């Protein structure tokens, strides 16, 4: 890899660190009586409301359908996800220092696997919250209705329209991956390595 490629790779790896502070995903809920909207922001280390009390208010609403309260403390992934993101970025910097295209390839594969696992895990939690309802405690019971929010896109859940999109943290990770992949592609062109 050229010095320029290595520098670019190191920067790309560091950009991924933004995912430690910026939200990875956002789920917004709209309903006729919520013109101002209500929603959740999923960070690497926690789940928080879009507005200060949104999480509490969403939990308050969810008690009507028997959904268990969303509690960041109950989601173990939130404890080690920041370490994985940090480790991934440091590994990317190490690859850049070493300048090995093979190592970069391995890093990209690991990145992809971690990303896919993360999305699957998120989907699994959404499934869990949306399906495993305590119907004894539910006040509103609609036969065959489940309340899994979308992973991405839009879905109607009773009076709420739920919309989910990647947050700026996920976009930073995507940018990190795309630039690193670009470095991998460019560095594989004949003649480039010699330059």
């Amino acid at each position, binding site marked *: 890899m050229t010095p320029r490629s290595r520098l670019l790779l190191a920067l790309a790896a560091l950009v991924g660190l933004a995912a430690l502070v910026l939200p990875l995903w956002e789920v917004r809920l709209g309903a006729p009586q919520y013109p*101002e909207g209500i929603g959740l922001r999923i960070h690497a280390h926690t789940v928080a409301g879009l507005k200060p*009390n949104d999480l*509490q*208010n969403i*939990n*308050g609403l969810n*008690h009507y359908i028997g959904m268990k309260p969303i509690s960041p403390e109950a989601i173990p992934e939130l404890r080690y996800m920041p370490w994985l993101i940090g480790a991934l970025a440091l590994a990317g910097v190490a690859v850049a220092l070493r300048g090995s295209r093979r190592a970069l390839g391995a890093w990209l594969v690991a990145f992809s696997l971690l990303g896919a696992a993360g999305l699957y895990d998120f989907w699994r939690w959404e499934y869990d919250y949306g399906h495993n309802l305590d119907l004894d*405690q539910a006040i*509103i019971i609609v036969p065959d209705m489940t309340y899994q929010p979308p992973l991405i896109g839009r879905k109607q859940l009773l009076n709420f329209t739920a919309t989910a999109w990647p947050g700026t943290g996920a976009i930073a990770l995507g940018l990190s991956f795309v630039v690193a992949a670009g470095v991998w592609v460019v560095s594989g062109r004949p003649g480039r390595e010699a330059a």
Partner: protein
Amino acid sequence: MRATTFALGAAIAVGCASPSPKELVTGDAAQRVYVAPGEHDEFYGFFSGGFSGQVTVYGLPSGRLIKTIPVFSQFPENGWGYTEETTPMLMTSFGMVPWDDSHHPELSQTDGVPDGRWLFINGNNTPRVARIDLTRFETEEIVEIPNSGGAHASPFTTPNSEYIVAGTRFSVPIPQADIPIADYQGRFKGTLSFIRADEPGQMDVAFQILMPGFDYDLGHTGKGPSADWFFFTSYNTEEASTQLELNASKNDKDFIAAVNWRLAERCVADGKAVATPVRYAHNWMDSTTRMARTEMKTSVRVLDPAACPGMVYFLPTPKSPHGVDVDPTGEYIVGAGKLAAVIPVHSFSKMQQAIADQAFDGDRYGIPVLRYDAVLAGEVEKPGLGPLHTEFDGKGYAYTSMFISSEVVKWKVDTREIVDRIPAYYSIGHLMIPGGDSRQPYGKYLVALNKITKDRYLPTGPELAQSAQLIDISGDKMQMLLDFPTMGEPHYAQAIPASLIQERQVKFYELAANGNPWVARAESETGIERRGRAVHVKMIAIRSHFTPDNLEGITVGDSVYFHVTNVEQDWDILHGFAVMGMRTSQLILNPGETRTLVWVPQRAGVYPFYCTDFCSALHQEMQGYVRVSEPGAGVPLRAEASERSATVVAAADPSAPHQHGTAGTGGR
């Protein structure tokens, strides 16, 4: 005033060929006042509630009522003046007074311009002034005025709301004394009170100027060059104590009192005022506990004009002047002699010169009377009948309400030439232009606040709503746009662009900051506790239940304190609370707020309580029971939650600090 009106109206047959109401309204008036669903009005209009003692808030130009702010009167609609937390706000030296007669809303000002921080309003009967916070639309402070027989000339502000004023409408013996009413002359006095108003929670009667026993009617501060002066109208300079209708209408000229309030401030600082024993209440809402507190004050500083030469002068003004209004430049002082045939306009610069030249026409009780022609800029000739109040559009024009001829007259301030007039339905009192008494009027609309309603709306028996009218003043000719009903006789109103207020609105109270000693921030903090014959219940309200909701062990004759906290933390999620057989009002609970209702059960049995504010889909299920036993029945004290409410989500955000939390006291 209505009684005199009809007499005058009958005596003076006005040959005014006014257009019919329909001829007044132009084709696109509806469009100009229409605010589409979901859109907002351009102005907040604050209307005095008159004899309701409250303030009503309207959107303008639509004329839609959007809020009643309880001030001086109990208000069962939200428990104001009934709950343990708010009752002290109505405390006076006469005890708790649950009603007053509110007249003049006044927005706080910065540099002579309304700033949207607070709204002040006076209570005329038990002399009081109140401060309303405009981030919450809630009365936060009320100060009683000692040495006063009624606070009508109030609560007008100095240019930075350093002070608001209160002039006595009815002079009385000062200090109060048991003397024959016939001894009025010389024994009865008036006061002009200056109330420190720019420190929330610290409002206080800073000083009072002791005045001759006239009736002090209205007032306004100067502006720009005249900013150090305050102007008050007076009538009954005849000092009559009976049949004022006749006896107070004899003098050809009464007075506008010009008071150099900056000089008064200095004289007070120099120790010229006398500390006088009095009793008056200062009530304020503690911002941490959101519980009202009362402090009974025992002394006030009274300043005799003789001790502070140059502080007060009288400007002769024809025939029982009512309004005194200062134009935006601060040069012109418009008096409105309600029985006068002209509108006199005094000049501040001429007044300064007359003082320098000692152009006096004698004195009253040692206060120099300036010569009329030495202070007068000129008179508006043939304005109509019964001028009362004047406001300004900031474009060089003044608008004066004419009570008897029932019209608004527009005239040019510097030439005093009448340029337009429009009828008002019926018998206009005050008029209001947003910012129209300030240095910076928003000269787009004028509201006529009429005293007689008659046929303006569908009839509703003998007692009718009051009639307000919105008039477009943006062009050369005034144009009638809209009638809208108002409640409780709003004497005066003020309005301010919505943009100065709407972004600063509090949407709910932070539960973590709730300092009420009886707060329960979560179901786990609720409970019940007996202290002799008092039983305290700490209860929470959340969609859609109360915790606890089954109470036992209460006996006939106990005082049961329901301390209910709405633990919701979202906008417009309110709960209510009422229990059968209570002899007070319900509670209405804003999110994050604790309010207390006291109930004394009279008969053994089981009594329901329920939520009175439709809160959620399961609002009808938001209820509970209290079991009341005969004393000695031996039923243990218990506060239980239903199985469901005990297992649903604890309300408080787990991340919210609970440092003020008090342990639950009961047996849950």
